[in-house]
């Protein structure tokens, strides 16, 4: 009789459904997965070590490049760790702006996720729909920071600048003209908050559109219902956080349980799943987009009514204003010292965590009192999630592995660091 052996295949690192650079060694019995061994680290840049050789502020930009679809949430964890060690009180308006942008980031991330996950599972159209709204939100990133992705907007002590009073408008071109141009510019007549108001009024209908495409879609349900079931016990044991944990029915959200920034003043709900399968996690993420939309509206209303400073006036950590530097020698010296030497952070250690779109993103910071961190460790949610791959995917079909990678919402910038 012919001997039948298990077959080992390499999935990735150049596979479009591998979401970047995941090399997955799969041992297959026919089309069933017997063992999955993810090989990671192909995008390892040593961010933590690089941060040890630079003054604190110069590493904020690295944080954007970790989870490069939820940029500002990563910055938030890092600056919160510095603020805890230095004992800085951040102005209220800056806290509201951070809350606002954390939620914009969450929508950006979930839009990327819904588009790419649907694309992996064969639904092409959702990707195009999701990128339409992503474009609108990235314009907000660009308006406050000048960069569409890697913003470096949060700083220890606040945010770099206040929200702009105007939004850039589209100019007439071969691609934008006539009624289309007017429609695009109609939202951009006023300030960024007006623009966000228009966006948040419109966005729930857009989410309805994605749901029309997917929620009752027969193929979508065949690919996700009952696939990758994670029990609540498993979710806890594997250190899962964010939608992975909530999809299994555990109501745990740092924004509610250990509130930071202005989340304790926000009115929003935590959606949870029941079955803990890919479909439930899809529903949780879609519901989260709607909740984020509510938070953006609340932040917008407050920010409109309460002008004020957006960064502390402590020149050891925040630069003085440009106008001041033209007049005052002191201000010029502060500026020079801040951007050349940086600032010393009192010796000690802290762990600051935020509820990033993918789960708990934490920053463990050890300082020995110098102007550079002694040790920075970044706790990436995707790292813990992906490590459970073998346990969850065992016994599934090859095509379900793709569904599972999609539902983990992996981004290798943060996993490999």
């Amino acid at each position, binding site marked *: 009789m012919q001997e039948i052996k298990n077959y080992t295949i390499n999935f990735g690192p150049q596979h479009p459904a591998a979401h970047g650079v995941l090399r997955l060694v799969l041992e297959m019995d026919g089309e069933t997965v017997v063992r999955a061994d993810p090989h*990671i*680290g192909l995008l*390892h840049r*040593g961010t*933590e*070590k*690089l941060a*040890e*050789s*630079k*003054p604190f502020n*110069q590493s904020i930009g690295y944080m954007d490049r970790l989870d490069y679809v939820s940029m500002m949430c990563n910055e938030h964890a890092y600056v919160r760790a510095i603020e805890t*060690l*230095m*004992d800085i*009180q951040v102005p209220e308006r800056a806290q509201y702006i951070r809350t606002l942008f954390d939620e914009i980031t969450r929508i950006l991330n979930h839009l990327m996720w819904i588009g790419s996950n649907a694309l992996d599972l064969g639904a092409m159209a959702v990707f195009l729909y999701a990128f339409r709204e992503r474009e609108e939100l990235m314009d907000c990133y660009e308006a406050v920071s000048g960069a569409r992705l890697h913003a470096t907007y949060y700083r220890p002590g606040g945010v770099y600048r206040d929200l702009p009073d105007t939004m850039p408008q589209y100019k007439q071109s071969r691609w934008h003209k006539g009624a289309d141009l007017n429609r695009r510019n109609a939202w951009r007549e006023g300030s960024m908050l007006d623009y966000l108001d228009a966006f948040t009024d419109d966005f729930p209908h857009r989410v309805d559109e994605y749901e029309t495409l997917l929620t009752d879609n027969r193929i979508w349900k065949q690919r996700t219902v009952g696939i990758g079931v994670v029990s609540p016990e498993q979710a*806890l*044991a*594997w*250190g899962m*956080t964010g939608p992975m944990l909530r999809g299994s029915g*555990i109501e*745990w959200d740092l924004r509610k*349980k*250990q509130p930071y920034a202005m989340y304790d003043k926000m009115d929003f709900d935590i959606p949870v799943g029941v079955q803990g399968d890919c479909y439930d996690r899809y529903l949780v993420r879609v519901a989260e987009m709607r909740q984020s939309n509510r938070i953006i509206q609340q932040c917008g209303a407050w920010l409109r009514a309460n002008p004020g400073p957006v960064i502390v006036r*402590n020149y*050891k950590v925040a630069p003085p204003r440009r106008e001041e530097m033209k007049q005052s020698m002191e201000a010029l010296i502060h500026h020079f010292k801040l951007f*050349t*030497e*940086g*600032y*010393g952070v*009192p*010796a*000690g*250690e*802290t*762990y600051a*965590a935020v509820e990033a779109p993918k789960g*708990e993103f*934490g920053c*463990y910071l*050890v300082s*020995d*009192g*110098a*102007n*550079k961190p*002694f*040790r920075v*460790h970044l*706790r990436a949610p995707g*790292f*813990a999630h*992906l*490590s*459970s791959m073998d*346990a969850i995917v065992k016994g599934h079909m090859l095509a379900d592995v793709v569904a599972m990678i999609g539902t983990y919402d992996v981004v290798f910038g943060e996993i*490999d*660091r």
Partner: protein
Amino acid sequence: MSADTATLAQRIEARLGERIVGVCVSRGETVVDVLPENWLAVARALRDEDEFKFAQLIDVCGVDYLGYGQVEWDTTDVTATGFSRGVEGEGPGRFDWAERPRSGAGHRRFAVVVQLTSVAHNCRVRLRCHASDDALPVVPSLVPLWPVADWFERETFDLFGIVFEGHPDLRRILTDYGFVGHPFRKDFPLIGNVEVRYDEALGRVIYEPVTSVVPRVLVPRTLRHDSSLEQAQAEQAADLQKS
């Protein structure tokens, strides 16, 4: 929440007092120091007992304390020619592989730090364990308690060379296949020790000692006693006491 963490520290002290080195609360965070021989027992108690219920292991990471608190640019003494410059420090950008700092008599260089979360009681705790031997740091593995420790410990082994006793599959995880050394140790140069390039003649990628980068420091490490920061903090503390 601060009252909660205070009582958590007291509860840990009361329950596990003889098995831990110490508990402290700093900045509202509870930190427990444990010896390697009690590491598993303490972790198990924190996971299973009803008053703790730390069901989630959030993070494991290593810390290398070589050169802790050392400066590269001494700014305390001023001479007639200015500040003393270019102090021979052990900062990560200062040296290449040949001139790497050797760990001296400094004891207990490596530590493993673990963050736990209790979903049931909504609290966090940080455990720290210094490995007793600097040359071969060994710490018991937490994989039997939390499966997620698997990858976190592999990462710590890869980057720091801390060996986890009882780990089922202690392979490298983040660095390249066939990598030599533990890059996050403080005596590992920031520029690395090998670089790769494609060799036309051999028709394959080859590894060579680093020549294209020179070690350099753009901003020296300084430790200053920042008077204005200290003053601001003192004022803030005084304000708090008044209110």
